[in-house]
């Protein structure tokens, strides 16, 4: 038995480089204004999937992401590391989704992918830190979930169970769960392998439909146009809400029970403070003051 694995990954704004105009009026993030990266814990998740593929030859790893056209970058990054096929779920109808609407959309796409034994994602995405999408996808698909996974210790194909080491508050536990299931992987798990040079050569021209359209703006010709006919794997699959039979009432802003009421820019009323330099004199004075008022010592 080979395994069918689906990896969930998100393209996220790099929170280390947040500019001032990162928020739109409605309180959602203006992703276009930020550099985009592969969500770090999703890379840990991808590694767990690729390890299973190594251990069970003949297994396939499908990578599913949701986002704008440029999120096809996530699929290429996956393909460079050994993913077999990628799917970009992309539609204006998905915009403004909270975690519930996001998990609904992902669950419909996973159903469309169909046959799967394990769905693996990162524990959480750095732009929200909510850790909600994994469990919500599991619930929508009626599957068990194992969150905060550190390592997949064993997978017994015969009795279809998986053994996972996971984090709990103040410790770790080992659990045994039946397949199929949803696993979310912690950032402390094994880091993802680097890109494979051969696979980079193979897939570097892979493009999604929206990326192609962008290249062909104003009547420009698509570079290497014939390649996309002779090498069909260079055409990355994009799915719309209609392609996955999503109920529009459950997608995007419509399907999001949480609404951003207000977004407030807070500026702290600067406290009355004492400003010092790093000179010996100043630091000594500070230490003496803290000692004399019993803050330290």
């Amino acid at each position, binding site marked *: 038995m080979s395994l069918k694995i689906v990896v969930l990954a998100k393209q996220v704004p790099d929170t280390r480089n947040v500019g001032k105009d990162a928020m739109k009026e409605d309180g959602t993030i203006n992703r276009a204004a930020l550099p985009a990266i592969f969500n770090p814990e999703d890379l840990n998740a991808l590694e767990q999937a690729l390890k299973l593929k190594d251990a069970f030859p003949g297994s396939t790893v499908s990578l599913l992401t949701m986002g704008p056209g440029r999120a096809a970058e996530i699929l290429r990054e996956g393909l460079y590391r050994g993913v077999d096929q990628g799917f970009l779920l992309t539609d204006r109808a998905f915009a403004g989704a909270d975690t519930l609407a996001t998990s609904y959309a992902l669950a419909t796409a996973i159903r469309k992918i169909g046959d799967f034994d394990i769905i693996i994602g990162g524990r959480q995405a750095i732009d929200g830190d909510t850790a909600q999408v994994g469990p919500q996808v599991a619930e929508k698909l009626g599957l068990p979930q194992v969150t905060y996974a550190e390592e997949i210790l064993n997978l017994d194909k015969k009795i279809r169970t998986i053994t996972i080491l996971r984090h709990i508050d103040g410790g770790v536990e080992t659990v045994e769960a039946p397949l199929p299931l949803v696993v979310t992987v912690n*950032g402390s798990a094994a880091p993802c392998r680097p890109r494979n040079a051969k696979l980079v050569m193979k897939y570097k021209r892979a493009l999604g439909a929206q990326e192609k359209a962008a290249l062909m703006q104003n009547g420009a010709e698509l570079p290497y146009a014939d390649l996309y006919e002779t090498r069909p794997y260079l055409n990355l699959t994009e799915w719309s809400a209609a392609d996955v039979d999503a109920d529009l009432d459950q997608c995007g802003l419509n399907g999001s029970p949480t609404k951003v009421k207000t977004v407030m820019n807070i500026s702290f009323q600067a406290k009355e403070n004492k400003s010092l330099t790093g*000179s010996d004199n100043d630091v000594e004075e500070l230490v003496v003051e803290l000692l004399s008022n019993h803050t330290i010592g």
Partner: protein
Amino acid sequence: MMNNIFVYLEIEGRTVADVSLELLTKGRKLATRQGCRLEAVAIGSQLDGIEAQVLPYGVDVLHVFDDPKLAPYTTQPHASVLIRLFKEEKPQICLMGATVIGRDLGPRVSSALKSGLTADCTSLEIGDHADGKTGKEYKDLLYQIRPAFGGNIIATIVNPEHRPQMATVREGVMKKEILDPKHPGTVVKHKVADYVPDTEYVIKVIDRHIQKAKHNLKGAPIVVAGGYGMGSREGFDLLFELAHELHAEVGASRAAVDAGFADHDRQVGQTGVTVRPKLYIACGISGQIQHLAGMQESKIIISINTDPDAPINAVADYVVVGKVEEVVPKMIKYYKAHSK
């Protein structure tokens, strides 16, 4: 009476977690404001007498689900209890700790009930809301307040149409306060099999280790915290040295944790630990809102930063403009010299 406020109790061994008691305290205030009851849900094994830990926080009804199979925690049985109970009771609000368990359970329950869930709230209030598009007015919603992404921004989230309004809160964010040691409350013991079909017990816990916490960051009277400006894990050694001298604990910003300078359990902030020490020394920390959320109630704050305009300086009592690698060794030196 229906539409009450529910708190999920996290129970380790036979002890209710602090975060749950903090939420009961908050829940009590919200319930009084809303004129409704505060209810708590205890799910686990050997829960006899658990009410003694819970009712004093002002709990009116305690729902108990006691079965050996319900401990240690596994997702589906606990989710199944809450989903069925909430379908019957129709709570207006449900609060949970933003712990590993709360973050595993909350989304599963919210997905099944199609209700909204806001993670890591730093404040909860009650207020009205008018929908900008439909003009519809909503009275007395739960304002779920949390730092938002990008700059020093605080977002207020509401769930106008869906119930329960669900939120998670980290330990230490809310204060824990007994209302009345003799608060009268009802204990309702439920038949577990009515709420959890056997098919929900699918995950087996085969081994479990709880380590004693390596440090007591939460309760430390002095915290020496480092940020990305510490430059490296070795840079943090300097902070451990200072902390050792001051009998302090070491904290970190998320950027420092992400960069591998410090361990994750030392992260201070909205998605880390909340601290209220008498002294907080922020070394090479810029002071984004998510960080401030976890330390701004410190009594005295010292910021050591090369940037005189670092946002953290606005909440600081002392600002030392300088390089941490120079200032911290001087602090150690002069502390040693004068503390004798």
